[in-house]
């Protein structure tokens, strides 16, 4: 083990880790907000509305995140006059915001599908019972259906966050110094292979911590659903 390397580049890797966490948490939260209308559009019986949402989801799930990132990051420069007129050029000028923009749209597509699946998995009887009790459509949706849907979507949501943590590594390709970016920089200066292994440990710690806490949270939130014999 090379301690000089660790002393010199350890703090840099940790600051990169922080950038990764920021990137992922911001994208996941913004993506969650956007995913709700998309999921509702996907559930719509109107073919045009459904079709628009379907195309959106198909595009972002069907092409690589890397290609999407390049499309926005390099494409924004080409649309500069338009973006300046709209007053949002400041956002697309920065690689960091570009990455957040792309990651958000990407995870929104995945999250919308998770949400749609779990909303559809809630028993129809729940809607009917709420209707019988005189509840209107939206109160039923938010107070009866959504809480049950969210519980059944906990596991896929956890997986999506993990995929996002791993996927965010490609931000390093567009000059962002996240954990991967700092690792590449340290490697290009030292040619010491160990930095990759340290980065690997940090990524594993991140992913495993999330996985274990998520599992505990899921167990706690679904404790009322388990049969007595399971416990």
């Amino acid at each position: 083990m090379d301690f000089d390397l660790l002393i010199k580049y350890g703090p840099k890797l940790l600051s990169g880790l922080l950038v990764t966490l920021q990137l992922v948490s911001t994208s996941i939260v913004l993506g969650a907000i956007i995913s709700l209308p998309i999921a509702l559009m996907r559930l719509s019986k109107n073919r045009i509305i459904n079709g628009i949402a379907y195309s959106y989801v198909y595009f972002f799930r069907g092409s690589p995140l890397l290609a999407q990132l390049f499309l926005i990051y390099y494409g924004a420069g080409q649309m500069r006059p338009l973006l300046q007129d709209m007053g949002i050029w400041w956002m697309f000028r920065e690689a960091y915001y570009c990455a957040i923009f792309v990651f958000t749209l990407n995870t929104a597509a995945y999250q919308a599908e998770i949400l749609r699946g779990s909303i559809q998995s809630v028993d129809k009887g729940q809607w009917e019972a709420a209707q019988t009790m005189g509840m209107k459509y939206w109160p039923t949706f938010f107070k009866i259906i959504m809480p049950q849907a969210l519980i059944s979507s906990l596991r896929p949501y956890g997986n999506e966050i993990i995929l996002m943590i791993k996927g965010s590594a490609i931000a390093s390709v567009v000059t962002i110094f996240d954990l991967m970016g700092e690792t590449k920089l340290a490697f290009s200066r030292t040619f010491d292979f160990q930095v990759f292994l340290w980065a690997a440990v940090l990524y594993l710690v991140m992913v495993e911590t999330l996985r274990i806490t998520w599992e505990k949270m899921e167990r706690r939130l679904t404790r009322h659903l388990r049969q007595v014999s399971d416990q």
Partner: protein
Amino acid sequence: MGETLGLLAFGDKGWGDEILAGLGVTISLFLATLPFGIFFGFLIALAKRSNNRLARLVANAYTTIFRGLPELLTLFIIFYGGQMLLQQLADLLFDGVYVELNAFVAGIIALAFVFSAYASETFMSAFNGIPDGQAEAARSLGLGRVQTLRLVIFPQLVRLALPGLANLSLILQKDTSLVSIIALPDLIRNTRIAVGVTKEPLFFFSVACMIYIALAVITSYFIGVIDRWSSRGQAGRS
């Protein structure tokens, strides 16, 4: 519009042939990785089911590591680490020989590591989906261990694992794009070169995205064909 589309022409003027060549690399990488990934995924699943504690431990660690690491980092570790390992090996055997790990091979290895880690979990749940009675019935008919696996378990395993493997292969197809970062001239790499020259990023990257989506559609079609074939013995459930 016609002018932009002209950029996709073949020959010296357009980038159509370069992009097509990149697509060829992308598809070959995908097709070359798939069999390795499935085969090792199956082996790792067998290791996880083995009675040997060490085998189980190694297989589980393998899965945790390659499912937890970013694919890009795995690729770098294989590419640079493999390079160093090869060089050290060459130094040991010959004097002053410079060896280089082929980026295509590094891509196959890294992607197969990731794919097999996920695939082993798919195989595990497929194994769990086959009732014990199947193996017991096979044994009482006098079939040996290998015969049971080959004739009774395996055909059912394929059917049960197929949806999961199909999903993973669609993910693999997209993950191949990462090799562009280690300078392999795949679809993305060649698109970037075209963008560098023409300064038309919106057009070219949109085309690249659309090609990937078309690939996904084609792959899904073939998956559907295999799915119908593998469940041909099932009674219609629709």
